[in-house]
């Protein structure tokens, strides 16, 4: 029985964004990210972030799931912001606390904001997209090789099993009298050994899965049909156009306000 069964059960993604074509979503997110990568000011990410937050209720992605997916992004944004506030080179303005000045606090805040603004559209898309839909869409719209798309999908399904395997291996080592105690070097060696056994196990399991897939005609050279059709409809085009408009609009607004700083030539 799956000890981490809960992890393996995919959440059924449904909602306005989930129903959009994943490749179109990917294109939209790429355009938004591009607009932010070339802009070094504060106004552009602020505008894009505002638009993304406005899009959250529209997307019908549950806020709890969005926060769970965005956890790592938020933590790294805070970390980057604090690091810059503490150790940044901008030592202007009044001293607030220790090494922090109003200038360095501003820089830290601006960088944290940029990280969130760049990451959030992608996170929202990931939280909304069913991996199966993405694989279907990659194959049908972008002509990504079938072996790659569905092979990756199948491998993804094995990840929770690997987590379970890792736990079992740790317990089995304890049962054999093997633990590191408080010795950090022994701990590292033990960890490395366990990573190796995990990889060996993953390869064996992957080989078995590949056999089962081949036995069902995967990669047989026959023309493959698709059970689930992914099509590009008008709302998908509108989504891409909306992303373009937000990205361009943010840059144009910032230029008009005289705040825009491009990545090159600024």
């Amino acid at each position: 029985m799956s000890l981490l069964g809960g992890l393996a059960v995919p959440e059924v993604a449904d909602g306005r964004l989930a129903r959009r074509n994943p490749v179109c979503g990917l294109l939209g997110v790429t355009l938004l990210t591009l607009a932010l990568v070339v802009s070094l000011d504060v106004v552009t990410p602020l505008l894009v972030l505002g638009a993304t937050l406005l899009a959250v209720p529209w997307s019908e992605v549950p806020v709890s799931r969005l926060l769970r997916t965005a956890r790592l992004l938020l933590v790294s944004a805070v970390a980057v912001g604090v690091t810059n506030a503490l150790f940044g080179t901008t030592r202007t303005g009044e001293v607030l606390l220790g090494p922090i000045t109003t200038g360095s606090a501003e820089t830290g805040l601006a960088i944290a904001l940029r990280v969130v603004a760049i990451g959030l559209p992608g996170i929202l898309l990931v939280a909304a997209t069913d991996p199966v839909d993405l694989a279907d869409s990659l194959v049908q719209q972008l002509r990504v090789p079938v072996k790659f798309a569905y092979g990756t999908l199948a491998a993804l399904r094995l990840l929770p099993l690997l987590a379970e395997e890792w736990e079992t291996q740790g317990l089995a080592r304890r049962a054999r009298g093997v633990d590191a105690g408080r010795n950090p070097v022994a701990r590292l060696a033990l960890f490395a050994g366990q990573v190796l056994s995990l990889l060996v196990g993953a390869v064996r399991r992957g080989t078995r899965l590949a056999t089962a897939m081949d036995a069902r005609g995967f990669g047989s050279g026959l023309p493959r049909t698709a059970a689930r059709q992914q099509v590009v409809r008008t709302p998908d085009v509108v989504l891409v156009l909306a992303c373009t408009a937000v990205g361009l609009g943010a840059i144009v607004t910032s230029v008009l306000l005289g705040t825009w700083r491009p990545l090159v030539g600024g």
Partner: protein
Amino acid sequence: MLLLAPSGGGKSTLLAALAGLHDPESSGRSKGTVLVDGRDPRQARLRTGLVLQDPQSQLVMARAGDDVAFGLENHGVPRERMWQRVDEALAAVGFPYGRDRPTAALSGGEQQRLALAGVLALRPGLLLLDEPTAQLDPAGAALVRDVLARVRGTTLLLVEHRVAEALPLVDRVVVLEPGGGVVVDGPPAAVFAEHGAALAARGVWVPGLPVPRRRAAGAPGAAVLTAAGLRHPRLRSRLPDLVLRAGEAVALTGPNGAGKSTCARMVGGLVRPADGELAPPLHRWPARALAGFAGSVFQDPEHQFLSRTVADELELGPLRLGSAPATARRRRDELLARLQLEHLAEANPFTLSGGEQRRLSVGTALATRPQLLVLDEPTFGQDARTWLELLDLLAGLRDDGAALLAVTHDEAFAEALADRTVVLGGEVAPAGAGVGSGAGADSAPAATVPS
């Protein structure tokens, strides 16, 4: 047709060749020809279907319907007919849920049924089954056999250790010779009447052959471990209070998903109980102290292997516990003899056969002379010979004064070895009462105690 052969008899190789997954050029020594429909099996690949032991590594997609459709897509079935065939296949295996059911939420038996649906949807002329019920509990195995009994219009080639359960499904039995050739070929009744004893000696489960009983001769000794009111989030209910005594073997049974493995890990001091009391408190002991007191044998022997050779594997525990190298070597030689692994001392544990791996995994747990041995499904997927060897080995340990707890859904094994049976989610049954056979659905944790 039922295909029988002792371990290493080449059953799996033959199945792979028939399924067209075997490349004669890459596999060095291959002799003879395999034809499916008069063609090379690789050309006839779309006419054959293959179902393997492990349900987890056969499912490709996250949802049941998508998984059945996967094969149909590969076969180029037009979309208009696809979902109708998916639904037909799901109905044919009696799949109790809809297409959107997440595959990860299924029990082992249900997953194996789904794997069968995925293959049957392709309407194979030849259906190859490699021990499809070996990794399932009795209820799950019954689900799969029900489906196989209803398959019509397809040649069924079944590899199975558990002959008695498989016989109603077949009308012909073929026994393979290790190294090539067919020993026997005929209707089941005739094959077992003439060759029953010889087959049993080779590790085949011959129906109707008596199973020896190895219950404890004397009364159990002092308590080795007491578990009172143990709970864990993965358990549907509390573990019944348990006292394990020296010289006593206890079987812990219960349906799949009731948390038997978690119980074994708690009792073995590997997993911290959320509540309740374990005396001695093994879960708080450092690994070395634990290994000297309690040995754990995992369901998959490979999880326990940490060394490059069988000999090193058996020395590892004693050395970790501070034995002198000479003492560790003596212990190793003793165990090699007892486990009949002397000829494999220098072999890599991962290259051993299933039965040898099982014996070695028990050996690794024994190396530190623990007073308590906790085993998780020790007879899982073993042939008759290993099964009997394991019974002898464990009965011998118990008679030498060790306390044994075996988590198992193998009723025959519990019946043969256990002095007491504890049913998870139920009451303690006296020895001989057995477990209500086929104990209901996966979801029923209740136990039956015949009076």
